[in-house]
C-alpha cells in the first residue's frame, strides 16, 4: 500500500506531474539536437534544482531522461543525423523512410515503440530489480569482453556494401577509441607525442562530425533540389502494425533492459545489438533492411528506451550507476541528503516507488508529446536547404564544443566530418566507425583485466571461462555469430535450404 502511494505521488501532486511533463517535453528536444545531451542537461539541473526538495528535482530529471533517449530518433529519421548515440541504429532505416516521404509514419512508429520499450523497462525495474541487478553484478571482465566482441561482430550487419570496408571502418573506430593516455596505465597511445592528444578524442565529437558535418556537406550537392514533401496523414500506427511487431519489440526490449542494467553498457550498444537481432530473426521484411524496414526502426527504439528502466536497476538496488545519466542522478541524490546504495531500498523504499512512478508518467507523456507536434517537426526537412545546412554545421560545432568545453574537440569533429564525407562517397559505411569507438574501451580494458586476472595465462583464462556458465554461453554466442558470417556456413545453409525446397 505504501508502495502504491509512493508510486502515485506524481499523480497526486499536480506540481510534480507538471514537472515530469515539462521534463519529458524538453527532453525530446534536447535529445533531438545533436549538440545537446541528456547527460549535460541533467548535470546542469543538479545546480539548478539545488534548493528544491528531492521529489521535484528527480521528477524533472526522470522526464528529461525518458524524453531525451527518445528524442534522438527524430533527427535521425528526418536528417540522418542521430541526435544522440542511442539513435545511430534508428537512422539506418528511419532516414530511408523519410526520403520516401514517410517521416511522419516513421516518427509515429518510433514513438509507440519507444513507449512500449519504456514500459517493459519500467516493469522489469518494478518487479525484478533485485534479481536483475544480482545477474548484472555477475558479469566478470571476461564477460564484458565477450559482450564487446559480440558488439564488434555487428559490423557484419551494419555494413551493407563491401564487408572489407566495413571491417576497416570498425577497426578505425577501435583505434580512435584508443587514442590518448591509456586510463589503466597512463601509457600514451596513438598520441604521436602531441600533448593535445593526451586526453583522447571525444566520441561524441567523432559522431557529430561523421554524421552531422558529412551529411551537411553531402546536402550541398542538392541545394537546388526541392525538399521531399512529407506525407503527414497517417502518423499514429494502426493496431495491426503494432501487433505485427509486438513479438519482436518484446525480444528487443529484453535486450535493451539487460544491456541497460549492466553497469558499463548503455542504450547505444543496446540499440545496435537489437538492430542486429531484428535483422537476424526477421525472415521476410516488407522492405529490405537499410531501405526503410519497419523492423529496423522497431528494434533500436524499443531497446534504447527499455535501457532506461534497466539503467535504474543497479542504481536503485545497489547505488551503482547503469550509465552516465544515472551516475549524475546518484550525485544528485547525495546532494539532496540521501545515501544511494544497497540500503536505499530498505531505508527509503518510497524513493524507489517514486522513481518507478515518475518513469511511468514520463512514458505516458512521451506517448502524448511524441505523437503531437510531428507535423511541425517534419517541416524541419522542408526548410530551405541554405538555412538547414548552415544551421546543422553551427549546431555540430557548438555541440562538439559543449561535450568537454574544448576547442580541440571542434577540430576533431571537423576533421572526422571531412573524412566521413569522403568515406560516404567511396562506399565506406560509417556506422561501424561509431560502433568501434563505443566498444573500444569496453573491449580493450576488459580484455586486459581478464588476462591480468588469469596471470597472462591462456590456460587459466579458459579454465575461468568454462567454469562459469555465463562466460560459456557468451563465448558460444560469439563463436556461433562469427561462424554465421563466414562463407562455409552460408554455403552450407544455402545447400540445406535448396534441398528442402526441392
Amino acid at each position, binding site marked *: 500500500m505504501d508502495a502504491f502511494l509512493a508510486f502515485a505521488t506524481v499523480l497526486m501532486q499536480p506540481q510534480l506531474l507538471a514537472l515530469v511533463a515539462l521534463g519529458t517535453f524538453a527532453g525530446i528536444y534536447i535529445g533531438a539536437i545533436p549538440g545537446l545531451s541528456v547527460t549535460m542537461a541533467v548535470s546542469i539541473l543538479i545546480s539548478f534544482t539545488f534548493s528544491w526538495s528531492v521529489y521535484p528535482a528527480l521528477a524533472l530529471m526522470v522526464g528529461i531522461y525518458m524524453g531525451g533517449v527518445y528524442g534522438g530518433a527524430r533527427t535521425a529519421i528526418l536528417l540522418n543525423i542521430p541526435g544522440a548515440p542511442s539513435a545511430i541504429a534508428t537512422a539506418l532505416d528511419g532516414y*530511408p523512410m523519410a526520403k520516401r516521404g514517410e517521416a511522419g509514419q516513421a516518427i509515429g512508429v518510433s514513438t509507440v515503440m519507444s513507449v512500449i520499450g519504456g514500459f517493459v523497462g519500467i516493469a522489469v525495474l518494478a518487479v525484478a530489480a533485485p534479481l536483475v541487478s544480482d545477474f548484472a553484478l555477475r558479469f566478470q571482465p571476461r564477460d564484458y569482453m565477450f559482450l564487446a566482441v559480440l558488439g564488434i561482430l555487428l559490423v557484419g550487419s551494419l555494413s551493407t556494401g*563491401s564487408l572489407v570496408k566495413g571491417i576497416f571502418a570498425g577497426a578505425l573506430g577501435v583505434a580512435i577509441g584508443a587514442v590518448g593516455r591509456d586510463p589503466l596505465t597512463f601509457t600514451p597511445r596513438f598520441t604521436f607525442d602531441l600533448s593535445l592528444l593526451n586526453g583522447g578524442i571525444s566520441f561524441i565529437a567523432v559522431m557529430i562530425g561523421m554524421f552531422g558535418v558529412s551529411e551537411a556537406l553531402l546536402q550541398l550537392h542538392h541545394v537546388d533540389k526541392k525538399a521531399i514533401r512529407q506525407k503527414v496523414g497517417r502518423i499514429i500506427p494502426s493496431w495491426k502494425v503494432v501487433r505485427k511487431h509486438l513479438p519482436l519489440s518484446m525480444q528487443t526490449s529484453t535486450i535493451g533492459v539487460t544491456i541497460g542494467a549492466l553497469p558499463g553498457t548503455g542504450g547505444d550498444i543496446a540499440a545496435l545489438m537489437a538492430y542486429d537481432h531484428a535483422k537476424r530473426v526477421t525472415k521476410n521484411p516488407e522492405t529490405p533492411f537499410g531501405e526503410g524496414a519497419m523492423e529496423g526502426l522497431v528494434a533500436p527504439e524499443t531497446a534504447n528506451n527499455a535501457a532506461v528502466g534497466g539503467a535504474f536497476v543497479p542504481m536503485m538496488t545497489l547505488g551503482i550507476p547503469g550509465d552516465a545519466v544515472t551516475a549524475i542522478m546518484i550525485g544528485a541524490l547525495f546532494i539532496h541528503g540521501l545515501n544511494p546504495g544497497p540500503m536505499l531500498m530498505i531505508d527509503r523504499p518510497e524513493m524507489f516507488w517514486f522513481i518507478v512512478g515518475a518513469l511511468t508518467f514520463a512514458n505516458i507523456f512521451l506517448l502524448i508529446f511524441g505523437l503531437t507536434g510531428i507535423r511541425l517537426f517534419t517541416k524541419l526537412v522542408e526548410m530551405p536547404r541554405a538555412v538547414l545546412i548552415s544551421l546543422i554545421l553551427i549546431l555540430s560545432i557548438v555541440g562538439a564544443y559543449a561535450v568537454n568545453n574544448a576547442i580541440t574537440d571542434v577540430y576533431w569533429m571537423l576533421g572526422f*566530418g571531412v573524412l566521413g564525407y569522403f568515406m560516404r562517397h567511396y562506399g565506406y559505411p560509417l556506422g561501424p566507425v561509431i560502433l568501434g569507438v563505443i566498444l573500444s574501451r569496453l573491449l580493450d580494458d576488459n580484455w586486459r583485466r581478464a588476462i591480468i586476472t588469469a596471470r597472462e595465462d591462456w590456460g587459466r583464462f579458459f579454465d575461468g571461462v568454462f567454469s562459469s556458465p555465463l562466460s560459456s554461453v557468451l563465448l558460444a554466442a560469439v563463436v556461433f555469430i562469427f561462424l554465421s558470417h563466414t562463407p562455409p556456413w552460408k554455403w552450407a545453409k544455402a545447400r540445406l535450404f535448396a534441398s528442402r525446397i526441392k
Partner: protein
Amino acid sequence: MDPNFRGDTDHHDGTSDATPGGYSKQRRPGELVFTFFLLGASVVLLNEAFGISGFGKLSAPGTVPVVTAAIMVVCMLIVGAQTVRLPKVAGETLARDILPWRVLAFVAFLVAYALAVRPLGFLPTTALFLVFGIRLLGRGWVFSAGVGLGALICIWIVFRIVFTVLMPAGIVPEAELVQLIRNLFGGAR
C-alpha cells in the same frame, strides 16, 4: 537483383549511411587517392602502435592497438588491390561529383571558423558564418542576415544561457552581458 544497383545515380553519393555510395564494379574519381591515403594512414598507425609498449605481455596497453592497426592495414591492402583493377566510372568528374565548388567553399568556411573562433569569439564568428553561408547558397542579403542572426540568437540563448556552455568569448564581453541579463531577470541574487 544486383545488390549494388540502386536505380538512380543519386544514391551513389551515399546520402543514407545504410546504402553507402560508391560502386562495387567501378572506381569513382579520387577513389584511388583516398584508398592510398587510408592505406598510408593505417601503416603509420601500425608503426605507432608497435611503439606503445611492445609485446611483453598479453595485457600490455599496446596489444589491442597493434591488432587493430594490423587489421586496418590488411583491409586496406585488400581494398587497394581491388580498387586498382576497377575501371573508372564514365561521366563522373572530381570537380562535379565529389568536390563541387560549394563543398570546397564550405570546407574553407569551416577552417576559417575554427581558426577565428578563439581570437574573435563565438558570437561574431558564428554571425559571419551563418550570414555568408546562407548568402552563398543563393539567398538574398536581407534574408541571410535576418535568418542568420535570428538563428544565432536562439542558439546563443539555448547554449549559453540555458545550458551554460562557455564558448570562447573573444572580443565580446559576454560574461558581463550575461550578468546584465541575469540581473535584469533575476533581480538580486
